[in-house]
């Protein structure tokens, strides 16, 4: 299999087939929290793409060049959390300085990327699968794209739901969760569309 094809499969697999939110159910907190407006969802997607790509690159280096040689594979989760947390803090500060409107729109959810299991999840997955560096970064990038894709679709649906008239007890997050479930159901159609190399 030529390399380009392989990369394409990684991207399609991470965006559609094994979508982080709709298939692996990672990153559900921002998925529900920042999906009320499409604009905010787009901003959040951008932030996640950035954080996830950079984080996976950093964690890969950390894992391969520091932890593995020292035989410290068992504490990689701890180390990853540390790195990711400070990275997010850094982005938070930078964003506040350079794009304040986006910072204001993302509000509490930007620091929440720290605890976004998708970020840690992708680092863990790369670590577990022993993916090479370039593919790790690509996979993380694609996974974040998939997260963003799902988030933006979902925000569109929720904007439509804002005009809907569900029964009182289902208003707000309840009906959003049902919608997310149905969206996940729809994405099951991509099941097995491509065979992931790992």
């Amino acid at each position, binding site marked *: 299999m030529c390399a380009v094809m392989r990369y394409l499969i990684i991207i399609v697999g991470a965006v559609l087939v094994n979508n982080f939110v709709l298939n692996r159910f990672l990153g559900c907190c921002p998925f529900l929290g920042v999906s009320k407006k499409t604009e905010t969802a787009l901003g959040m997607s951008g932030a996640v793409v950035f954080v996830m790509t950079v984080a996976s690159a950093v964690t890969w280096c950390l894992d391969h060049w520091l932890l593995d040689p020292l035989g410290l594979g068992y504490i990689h989760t701890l180390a990853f959390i540390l790195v990711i947390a400070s990275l997010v803090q850094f982005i938070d500060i930078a964003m506040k300085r350079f794009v304040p409107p986006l910072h204001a729109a993302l509000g509490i959810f930007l620091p929440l990327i720290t605890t976004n299991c998708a970020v840690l999840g992708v680092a863990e997955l790369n670590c577990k699968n022993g993916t090479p560096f370039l593919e790790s970064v690509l996979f993380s990038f694609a996974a974040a794209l998939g997260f963003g894709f799902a988030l933006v679709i979902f925000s569109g649906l929720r904007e439509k739901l804002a005009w809907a008239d569900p029964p009182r007890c289902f208003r707000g997050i309840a009906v959003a969760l049902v919608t997310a479930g149905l969206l996940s159901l729809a994405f099951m159609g991509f099941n097995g569309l491509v*065979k992931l190399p790992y």
Partner: protein
Amino acid sequence: MKPKDTSEHYILSSSPHAHADASTSRIMLDVIIALLPALCCGVYFFGLRALFLTGTCIAACLVTEGLCRLAMKRNNTIGDFSAVVTGLLLALNLPPDLPVWMAALGGVFAMGVCKQLFGGLGYNPFNPALAARAFLLISFTGPMTTWTKSAWTLSAGNVEATTTATPLALIKKGAEGFDWSQAALIKDLFIGNVNGCIGEVSALALLIGAAYLLWRKVITWHIPVAFIGTVFLYAMFKGGVPPLVHVLSGGCVIGACFMATDYVTSPITANGKLIFGCGCGLITMLIRTAPTGAYPEGVSFSILIMNALTPLINRFTQPKPFGKVKK
């Protein structure tokens, strides 16, 4: 003391004071009428059980809708026939041999979870019939993909073979040495003498119904043409199985003409409809032709995914007002 009211009051309302002869129930009735030929074909090919299954689905939908409205303390909306349409569409997308209770469950899911939970007709983001079908397919994969009773005959070379698979399942399996372009096969596919869901087999009956809907101006040409056109072109460039076989087999025609054109879950503008139709066709063919894909048929999933994208498509295909000046 209240002053005496003058005689009977006139009605006061905002203009316009004239209205076209159109109503939601009339539209739904038109869809039901348009689906009747397909239902008749289903009954002809699969026997009375198909009719029974259809009745069950419709009854389940009606009862669920009524109960939901009652529980929500809202007006009863059974009279707008939308529940009948959903029940009918769901049944037409089920294999004729599905256990009756599963069909009923599908109806309950369609009405309860996919429609009334969002507030009823007009608010559901996904096509209820398709969501219910997908739900059944995921939950009961076996019964939903078993085709036992009605067998169709196909000839490969000089050998006549009887199979219980659907044409798409055969394509997926890669029926070796099979001549897909033979006239008899195309004819069977067109008439509906193949295995498949109750309502999807006969392209002829479905096209008659679609023509009726177009004539009644219930649907526009955009989605069906874009959908089927994309499937055709994709199959043409992909090679192998003739495009016509792809178009005529499985749920392509019923999906393009009846499911994707569902008002509530498809874009409102003509451009949006074209994008929607193309997207449906593309995803359908991706799922159908992926060698490792889990499903031989992708119509319902493709429409569901495009349903999810509909709000975004609407957002980016807003019409430009007459005389709008670019800012």
